[in-house]
């Protein structure tokens, strides 16, 4: 917490060292979270980068996070991704995600792996935003149960129930898609 307060102080002054430090610390988490939900490298980079740009603009404008920098960044990334999906829903276009393009040298294994991930990706899209969010935090961002609870402003037990429902829905979705 003290570390985060230190970063927030530097951030409010738009101190380059603080900005570099915050980027170094949080960019990989944001990228992985976004990539889990979007399945695409360049979109994940765009979302993670845009979250940082919004953070800088918020603090320059006297707004921004008061306590949890990570929570603010993840929340902003989640909103950006939801907007991305809403836009995609209005203007649907099928895109090949990066993970569906190649999968190693063995063509048979590659085709099987691609098909498996395609099924998984489609099942994931069918989950509610909250279910996608919890899975992306747990398995994309790699956050613990307690960290996920803090980021979602819920109790750990509520996260246990939510991840249970999300995994069950994901499993059902995969069977349905197959």
């Amino acid at each position, binding site marked *: 917490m*003290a*570390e985060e*307060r*230190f970063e927030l*102080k530097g951030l409010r002054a*738009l101190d*380059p*060292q603080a*900005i*570099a*430090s915050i*980027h*170094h610390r949080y*960019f*990989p*988490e944001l*990228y*992985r979270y976004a*990539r*889990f939900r979007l*399945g695409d*490298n360049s979109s994940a*980079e765009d979302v*993670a*980068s845009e979250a*940082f*740009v919004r953070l*800088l*603009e918020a603090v*320059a404008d006297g707004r921004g996070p008061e306590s949890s920098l990570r929570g603010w960044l993840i929340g902003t990334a989640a909103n950006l991704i939801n907007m991305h999906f809403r836009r995609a829903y209005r203007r649907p276009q099928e895109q090949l995600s990066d*993970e569906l393009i190649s999968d190693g040298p063995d063509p048979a294994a590659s085709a099987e792996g691609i098909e*498996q*991930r395609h099924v*998984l*990706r489609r099942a*994931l899209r069918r989950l509610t935003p909250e279910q996608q969010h919890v*899975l*992306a935090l*747990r*398995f*994309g*961002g*790699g956050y613990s*149960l307690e960290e996920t609870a803090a980021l979602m402003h819920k109790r750990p*037990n509520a996260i*246990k*129930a939510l*991840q*249970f*429902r999300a*995994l*069950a829905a*994901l*499993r059902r979705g*995969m069977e349905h898609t197959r």
Partner: protein
Amino acid sequence: MTQHLLDALQASLTALESGAEVEACLAKYPDLAPQLRPLLEAALEARHLGSAAVPAEAVLRTQQAILAHGRMLRQCRPPVRKAGLQPRLAYALLALAASLILSGGWLASASAAALPGDWLYPVKRAAEDLRIRLAVSVEARQRLEADYSERRASEVLTLLQLGRTANVSFEGVLTEQVSDLWTVAGTLVRIDSATRLAGEMLPGMTVEVHGQTQPQRFVLANEVLLLEYDWTGIVEDLQSTTWRVGGLRLGVDRGTRIEGEAEVGDLVRVRVRIGSDGNLQARAIYLVSTPIAPTSTPAPSPPTPEPEQERMEFRGVVTSIAGMVWTVSGQAFLTGLETRFEDNPRVGDTVEVEAVRLLNGDLLALRIRVTEQEEDERTPEPTRTPEPEGTEEHGEEGEKVTFVGEVEAISPTIWVVAGQQLVIDDETEIRDDPAVGQTVRVEAIKQAGGVLLARRIELEDD
């Protein structure tokens, strides 16, 4: 869905993260196995989706963009001044004194736009030094020093845009190190064999550069000094004017920002500035944590990984060094203050890396050591990359070079193609949006000092 089932799922997920097999997890809950199995299988699939590595070039690309955006916002932001009467009065008196001493306002205003090399430039610097010496409070002095420091970096950029050669000194954050081309405060700085490097410098630290601006839009550095870095350690001694933190004796004065009530034994993070006399001054001290049970544990060196983290060892060839990211046989490692480099490892060397995995999955190198190379893996002279194979023509602005190669790295100002660093400027024409790994045709101009200034980069047809 019972609490027992929820707890069993959570415990099984934790076990899976630690490398346990699904069957081993189910064996612990035989009564729940039929319900748990599909959930754990789905979790394994989901984990696979989240296992992708973060591309080092994405980290560097966005870091550059974010720092540039922060710089722009900072320049747009009105300066924050305290509303008290005393500082304003002090500034008014200072301005008046400066104007009088400089024999009239016209001289001061005329010198304001002077650049290094102009005859009025010494007047401008003398006026600035005067204002700093006359600053009443430590805060005012530090604010002036920061303002003038930014002015120095801005002057260098102006000189480079004008293509003028002049001796310059400036300081700023080191944001990128691509072999012998560094980026400091947005300026490209070339390091050569004659450059004196004082201190171990890594991206994120503040450095001071002394050198000459070159018409090719970079600064040729004579000397680069480490100025500021962050240090985390245990407070070992605490006096009114000096603290001892993690083995460092640090000066503390009214200008030191102290956050938290730190005491001996506490863990603190310090922004350390190296003075011209070599003494260390604490610019800011932040309390990180207090010990649960104070012990005589030796001070950890800067950000030490958690003790329970398992250390891993890798062996391979250094294939690239991009700022803080080292690639060793295809595996990316972050480096930082906590990384110990032994025997000056460089691209092409076979090294052993001792690393820990951070919570976000990155590997942080704690030690990179050059190892004895087997006869068959000895690499050719690694210090300089070979000249590109291609055609050369001699034009008025320098040798024109054309070659074809694979894009190895992309950053806003530097590309690496076939092992060659290319400087990118506003006039570089980039066609077809090439990406790392693709083969491109490069047209460049070889400038003084061997710098390749890219004029056109386009995808090479098969």
